[in-house]
């Protein structure tokens, strides 16, 4: 299946290679560089490239290209999903998935890759198993290791790999037993020029941080499970229980993981928490334009909208922008033509406004289209869909855990067309 993996940074250096079968020469990456050149930006590099003898399947994560070499037919998503899993594992181990982090921990990276694939077929991809096999680096441990010469490799043999619950490691012990659930909902929306909603839906996830000793068996129920239209589960969840009772019943992995992700049924009207008033115009002859944007709160159920950030990809003809913000600060990058306005909290008494002049390249034709505005925001303690966790029960263990649920609503792909 997966023959080799090359990690390539943005400037085109291959800084790591790993082969699971015979060695494939680095020169195969030339085809990738060729495709990369053809694509205008990194996002447009085709994920699958066919070369005379190999196929290259790549992903782009955190400024690194993960390029895998394939020789025979394999579902492309299989490889893509696996590569993302690799990137997730690096993130999990080193806190960030960056070139420096990988270079600094090259031995651990190599050990991880060795465990994750055998002959190109995924072997252990669960973070709980991997952590049993190879301990993640911590500052303390690296100090201790350098003094005592002990290693990162776990000397106990991984039992998790053998169990029926591969996602949980055995012998977990905590003094404080805690279970936290973050219900995070994101609003994806497209708002058209006139302010009416073209498309809106709510996507949610429940991220959990479970630190419970032993083998706890949890069941989480909702006040209104019918809201969830389409759900995808962590493998620990018993599907049949959900089917029949709409209860999430599971033996959790240890640590942080995504329990479910869901979509709220599209029949429910989505409350859009903010509105945007905009006036953007370009004048033909004076090579200037006006820019005036106001953001205001709307239907936020009494909660404050915070962390508001607006980013706009201005047309190429824009040279510079002279704006004044009544609140927050703005930056305009004349190279990438990206305007970012960090608004912060919205107070209904004084609506934030950004206003001023746009300087256009003289002589260039006026831009055809007004740029669309991408808005980010956050509302604490609110799940916009109205989803509510009813209760969490634990079976199988005696102690009483500390339980917590947090709700948060964010803007997902929230775009206002102007």
């Amino acid at each position, binding site marked *: *299946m997966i023959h080799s993996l090359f990690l390539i940074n943005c400037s085109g*250096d291959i*800084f*790591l290679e*790993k082969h699971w*079968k*015979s060695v494939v*020469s*680095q*020169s195969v990456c030339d085809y990738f560089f060729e495709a990369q050149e053809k694509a205008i930006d990194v*996002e*447009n590099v085709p*994920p*699958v490239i066919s070369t005379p003898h190999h196929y290259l399947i*790549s992903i782009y994560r955190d400024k690194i290209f993960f390029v895998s070499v394939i020789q*025979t*037919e394999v*579902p492309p*998503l*299989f490889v*893509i*999903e696996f590569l*993302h899993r690799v990137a997730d594992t690096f993130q999990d181990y080193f806190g960030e998935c960056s070139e420096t982090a990988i270079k600094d921990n*090259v*031995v651990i990276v190599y050990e991880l890759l060795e465990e994750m694939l*055998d*002959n190109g077929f*995924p*072997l252990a*991809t669960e973070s709980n198993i991997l952590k049993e096999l190879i301990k993640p680096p911590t500052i303390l441990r690296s100090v201790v290791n350098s003094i005592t*010469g002990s*290693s990162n*490799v776990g*000397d106990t043999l*991984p039992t998790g790999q*053998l169990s029926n*619950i*591969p996602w949980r490691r055995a012998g977990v012990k905590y003094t404080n037993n805690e279970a936290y659930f973050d219900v995070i909902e994101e609003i994806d929306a*497209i708002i058209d020029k006139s302010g009416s909603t*073209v498309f809106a839906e709510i996507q949610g996830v429940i991220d959990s941080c479970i630190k419970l000793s032993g*083998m706890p*068996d949890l069941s989480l129920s909702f006040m209104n499970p019918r809201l969830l*239209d*389409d*759900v*995808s589960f962590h493998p620990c969840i018993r*599907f*049949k*229980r959900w*089917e*029949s*009772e709409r209860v999430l019943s599971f033996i959790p992995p240890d640590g942080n993981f995504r329990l479910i*992700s869901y979509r709220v049924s*599209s029949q429910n009207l989505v409350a859009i928490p903010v509105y945007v008033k905009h006036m953007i115009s370009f004048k033909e002859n004076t090579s200037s334009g006006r820019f005036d944007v106001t953001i205001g709160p709307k239907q936020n159920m009494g909660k404050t909208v915070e962390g508001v950030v607006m980013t706009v*990809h201005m047309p190429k003809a824009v040279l510079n922008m002279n704006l004044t913000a009544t609140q927050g600060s703005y930056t305009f990058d004349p190279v990438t033509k990206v305007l970012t306005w960090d608004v912060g909290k919205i107070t209904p008494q004084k609506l934030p406004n950004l206003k001023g002049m746009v300087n256009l390249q003289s002589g260039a034709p006026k831009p*055809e*289209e007004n*740029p669309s505005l991408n808005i980010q925001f956050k509302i604490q303690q609110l799940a916009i869909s109205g989803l509510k966790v009813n209760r969490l029960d634990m079976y199988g263990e005696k102690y009483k855990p500390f339980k917590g649920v947090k709700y948060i609503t964010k803007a997902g*792909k929230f*775009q206002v067309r102007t």
Partner: protein
Amino acid sequence: MAASPAYGEEKGGSSSLGEPEYGHDPASGGIFSSDYKRHDDLKEMLDSNKDSLKLEAMKRIVAMIARGKNASDLFPAVVKNVACKNIEVKKLVYVYLVRYAEEQQDLALLSISTFQRGLKDPNQLIRASALRVLSSIRVPIIVPIMMLAIKEAASDMSPYVRKTAAHAIPKLYSLDSDQKDQLIEVIEKLLADKTTLVAGSVVMAFEEVCPERIDLIHKNYRKLCNLLIDVEEWGQVVIINMLTRYARTQFLSPNQNESLLEENTEKAFYGSEEEDGKDAKAEAAMLAKCKPYVMDPDHRLLLRNTKPLLQSRNAAVVMAVAQLYFHLAPKAEVGVIAKALVRLLRSHSEVQYVVLQNVATMSIKRRGMFEPYLKSFYIRSTDPTQIKILKLEVLTNLANETNISTILREFQTYIRSMDKDFVAATIQAIGRCATNIGKVRDTCLNGLVQLLSNRDELVVAESVVVIKKLLQMQPAQHSEIIKHMAKLTDNIQVPMARASILWLIGEYCEHVPKIAPDVLRKMAKSFTNEEDIVKLQVINLAAKLYLTNSKQSKLLTQYVLNLAKYDQNYDIRDRARFIRQLIVPTEKSGALNKYAKKLFLAQKPAPILESSFKDRDHFQLGSLSHLLNAKAVGYQELPDWPDEAPDPSVRNVEVSLSNAHISQVPEWTKCTSREKRKEKVEKPFYSDSEGESGPTESADSEPESGSEENGSSSSSGSSSSGTEEDEEEEEDSGEQSEDKEEEEVEKRPKRKDKEGSHKAVLGSAGRYALGSSPCCLLVQLLSPAFSAVKTYELLHRMAGEGLAVEYCFSRRPFPGDPHMVAVQIQISNNTDTEVKNLRVNEPKPLSGMRIQEFPEIEHLAPGDTASVVMGIDFCDSTQAANFQLCTHTRQFYVSIQPPVGELMAPVFMSENEFKKEQGKLMGMSEITEKLMLSEKCQSDHTIVQQLTSAANVGRVPCGASNEYRFAAKTVTSGSLVLITLERREGSTAQLTINSEKMVIGTMLVKDIIQALAQ
């Protein structure tokens, strides 16, 4: 360590392997000396006694390997440490070994003995890792050793080692393909493995080594289906893809004769109901000719067991299930995958890219499926261009009369985008919408004409090309547009657009008689500066004008042709020569000249704008080949459905009686409802069930749902209201039957691979549900359904010290649990004191059996009789249920042994259904016996009565007068039991029982013969 300057040099493309190793500073001269020096110090470290030094050296070596540098000269020093005690050093040595063994084969052999020792280690993980490394060393000499090791590991106790063996198979195969036959044997053996750990890996090996040996799958098919949900996610993908191919070879297309099917079932229903002999015969003849499609239960099993995986977090699994449904499911059921696929569109952009490619292909065939999710394909300005273009493709495929106005409105926004490639694609999309949907053609055309005044030349050019195609459909009405476009020739520079305009003017020169010659004049002027495609069209235009309007254009044409004659491009020279001969009449020019006008101005069919994704579905969806639209190496063709279904019995698995022994494992994964959950916790299963208790019927053949369907269709037949209603109803009943099936799945055990310690873990996991006390059901008195009900003694008056207990089988469904046999118990108090607290105590069911006690009887006055009902799940066996009957003073050990006839419940089915089911239960599952009917049993009535009293079965209508048919289902597993009694001359008769439960079948035969021969 990071010698990053070296990258720049390596980037040139050549392999870095052969390059010498640079020191930290290549400029310091003496490349070789520094190289040797550094490696010397590594060698020294590796030779030292300290583990920490060895570790440090190994880490540096691995870092070198990771950066693609050559460390092969260290091989002897490294390989010495293969038996090192330190586990990390050992692991890193393994990494090194696997990387370089191929290049240094002789030295690599030194390490083999270590692994051979490891293969014998008592610890399974060490055995596994030894096998893993041994098989990863690509040294041909050790092939026999590997083969031996794999064979041994394939029968290892530990499933983990067996999994590693499965992984080793493709490695060995790629090293030496001559081993294929032996490896297939190992694969065959591992395929029979019942653990989820092994399943994914062995199917992977199967796919790489012998994907054509589909026959190896037969016996394991049901097991794989049932295990699927518990296999790890990567294995799931491989198994699902393989099963898709398997199903295509083994089952019939579910969509082949849908319409026929509906018609036929309806008629068959009436036929059997009316018992109209003549009609029925005709019907039967017709049915025989085009037998209605019945989904193979195994086909259904696959669809049912993969459906939950649509909820997987792994996009590859979701895609695998989606393609399985697309290729295998009946049309009506494919829709379920749309929601899951749309969900994936929220994922990483690479995932989106692949999913959209597949959605584009699917949306051509099954447009309705994605229509509800139209808006999910709307495009954001921040999407990467390649995603935008794919979304556009999907939107175009989804466009129809009803949604076209919204889609066009959306397109209008896209046209103003800054991303010009995307705008061009949008214009193409508009063109496609306009050709496909006649209603909006004019609107689209007008919109496109407006775009002709766009500032961006690319947009204009693209519009021209699309307009040209649209105009070909109805040129007469659009001379205005052609005129407008003629004017554009002055400004527009994009060759393709210029060529398109010229072609249009030439083709429709009759509609613009005044402008055309003028355009030609202009073009003739600039001819030499034009691009080749434009020149060709100028020649075309000239020729056409010469034919229609030779007066004005004769000289111009001559001029153009002369210019073309000396053009650099030989295509153009050729064209000019050819055209001159054709249109200018000379003496030499032959008969063709007369037809020149017909040749040039023939009616040309309008081009059809098609999706590039059309017909891509001959590749298996989700595959690399589909994405590339070309066959990739190792792609296994998705076979067409067979015309005749291959023998389904190949998938039957023989059940040895010893296997049928009942084992008890608490089921912890699924429960239908709170109520059921409590009872089901101890639900037993047959350890052999994955093969033997496979599904017994399909949606169509399930008796209840079948009759429902029939009912609904008959009702719609009488009410001539409309077809929509009808369809809805049918859908409903379909869903119901699906629900039922799902319940059935639940009953089926899932985790069969518990071993030792895990069992304990799972036990504790399941136990919590037991905490709640079993709920007691208060059941009112049930009178026996038949007068002939036999009563059995549970406790004799003497033994019970005055307490007499009798029981009978009431043959009513036990309320609360359909899998229990209701036992009615009659307790009479013959003592002269009151009996208190009469209850069942300490039921000691055999493993798997469940007993639902009757509620405690508080008081039983002397001489009184109480009747209670208890439920027992006998697990379809005639083993006795033992329990204690307690009073306030005494306790009695009692047992209830059910006659085999009571382990079933009647089902009602039509004659056709009976035949159909019987057809499925031939061979092994059929038992035939001859018997003599007793004198009593000569009339129809008595025979039926005797038989129904011997077994709890329902009569099935039968056309022949000397035949009796009965049908029942076993209570626990729901397996069908079909009984046919055929009377022969005299008092002989032949009894046939069809049931996949062979034990029940044989015992039932005995019981019935006894009842009838008495």
